[in-house]
């Protein structure tokens, strides 16, 4: 992790009518940091992430993502980030190789580089025999590992992971985190949401959203100290219990 700031927000706010989905979020994330973004259902995580990815224009406040402005340079933001979620990541009816080529192309990588890098990636993942199989036929764990690799294929500064390990078996879940550590060690910033509290422990810092507000932000160790809790599960429970909002 370095001192270089790659996400910087100042009172970032999103309103839908009278409803304040994300309320004056102010925080910084560093280069190569694994930043856990936690919160109960309806706490405003998705809204905040959509703004950070340049998909939704804030109502007020400011933010710079990889040095680009969330109001004026949203196309630049999209080029410099990667994204994967549990719900959507790859095209099931394209093969492994086709998915890699497709996403490489979307991000404007030259054909030659896509071909070379795809070969390396497929070997690293041990998918040599599966390269020409449809992604839909792969086990979920493999799919998610491939999806993560595709999300960082174009060398983004930041990768956003929205519940990347949901429903994945415990062994594959750990292999997935090995990949996250590797990516972070090369300088990619990892912004991740999860419902698994053991995974919260793997993050450098954790933020907790409650009712649209960032209620806590610190290292897992400091949060446990502050809330006199044995586990992150207890910290989460302590913070989320006071939530008034129950919407998604």
């Amino acid at each position, binding site marked *: 992790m370095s001192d270089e700031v790659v996400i910087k927000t100042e009172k970032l706010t999103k309103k839908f009518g009278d409803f304040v989905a994300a309320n004056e979020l102010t925080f910084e994330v560093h280069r190569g940091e694994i930043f856990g973004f936690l*919160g*109960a*259902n*309806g706490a405003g995580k998705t809204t905040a992430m959509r703004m950070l990815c340049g998909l939704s224009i804030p109502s007020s406040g400011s933010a710079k993502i990889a040095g680009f402005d969330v109001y004026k340079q949203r196309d630049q933001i999209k080029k410099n980030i990667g994204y994967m979620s*549990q719900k959507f990541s790859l095209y099931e009816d394209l093969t492994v190789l086709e998915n890699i080529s497709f996403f490489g192309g979307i991000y404007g990588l030259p054909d030659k580089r896509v071909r070379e890098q795809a070969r390396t990636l497929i070997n690293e993942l041990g998918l040599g025999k599966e390269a020409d199989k449809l992604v839909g036929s792969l*086990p*979920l*764990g493999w799919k998610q590992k491939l999806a993560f690799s595709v999300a960082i294929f174009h060398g983004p500064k930041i990768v956003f992971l929205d*519940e990347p390990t*949901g*429903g*994945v*078996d*415990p*062994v*594959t879940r*750990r292999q997935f*985190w090995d990949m996250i*550590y590797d990516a972070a*060690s090369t300088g990619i910033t990892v912004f991740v949401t999860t*419902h*698994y*509290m*053991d*995974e*919260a*422990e*793997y993050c450098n810092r954790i933020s907790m959203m409650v009712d649209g507000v960032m209620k806590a932000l610190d290292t*897992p160790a400091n949060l446990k100290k502050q809330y006199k809790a044995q*586990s*992150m*599960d207890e910290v*989460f*429970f302590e913070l*989320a*219990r006071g*939530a008034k909002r*129950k*919407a*998604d």
Partner: protein
Amino acid sequence: MDVAIHNLVKTYNKGEVNAVDNVSLGVAKAELFGLIGPDGAGKTSIFRILTTLLLPDGGTATVNGKDVVKDYKLIRREVGYMPGRFSLYQDLTVEENLGFFANLFGTTIQKNYDLIKDIYVQIEPFKTRRAGKLSGGMKQKLALCCALIHRPVVLFLDEPTTGVDTVSRKEFWEMLKRLKAQGITILVSTPYMDEANLCERIALMQNGKIMSVDTPPKIIQKFPTALYAIKASAMGRLLVDLRQVDFLASCYAFGEYHHITFKPGKEGEQQTLVQLMNAKGHDDVEIKRIEPTIEDCFIKLMN
């Protein structure tokens, strides 16, 4: 036995995929039984066979003494089913959905209100809202009410807590305990290993097979070796270094700590390990013996 499954088989893609691979298990009356496993373990296929929505390719299964193939019409009257995907009518209101399901089963909301009261009061303030406009947590509660309104003998819940935050998950399991106390047999599935302890008995499943069936404490007792937790100031580097140690049998991240087991005959080498890690420049190395969790057992059974 309210649910009895013998050598159940279900294949897809002309036999290419063994979704349910020779599974046998029984669930007693008023038991809270959990199918624990990741996506692709075969949990949903089992639910769909037991609720008579899918025909098995081999083996037999009975629900409340009735055969899932021959007596499917009888079974449908006696079971409640909450599928993993929200399946109520999005354009009907909360109240209309509940009334519809009551009507379908020839009963009324009033008649079985006592069964759903605890849950329904939480969504009653929104009873005129369309189901499609509810939050995830409220949808889940409405779906549970609709699955219960005809007072089923057996309740099937397919991943009711997936994608739900820990606070709502805790509330949901409290509701299940109260339903069990009213004599309802519950078969529930979950990918969250930490929820296994909330069931009376569990089946740990992977790739269509059952790896172990027992009460959670007994599954933990069966863990074959001593398990240790270790931590130091640089956890990522510690994991890499631990993987190089030849007298360790296993080593994986587990929240705040890494969990390790020693090779046979090498138990008691804890201090050697600490010295070794200190020599590699690790500070604040702490090691302690711990009781395995269900997730540790699952990982062990997978290998």
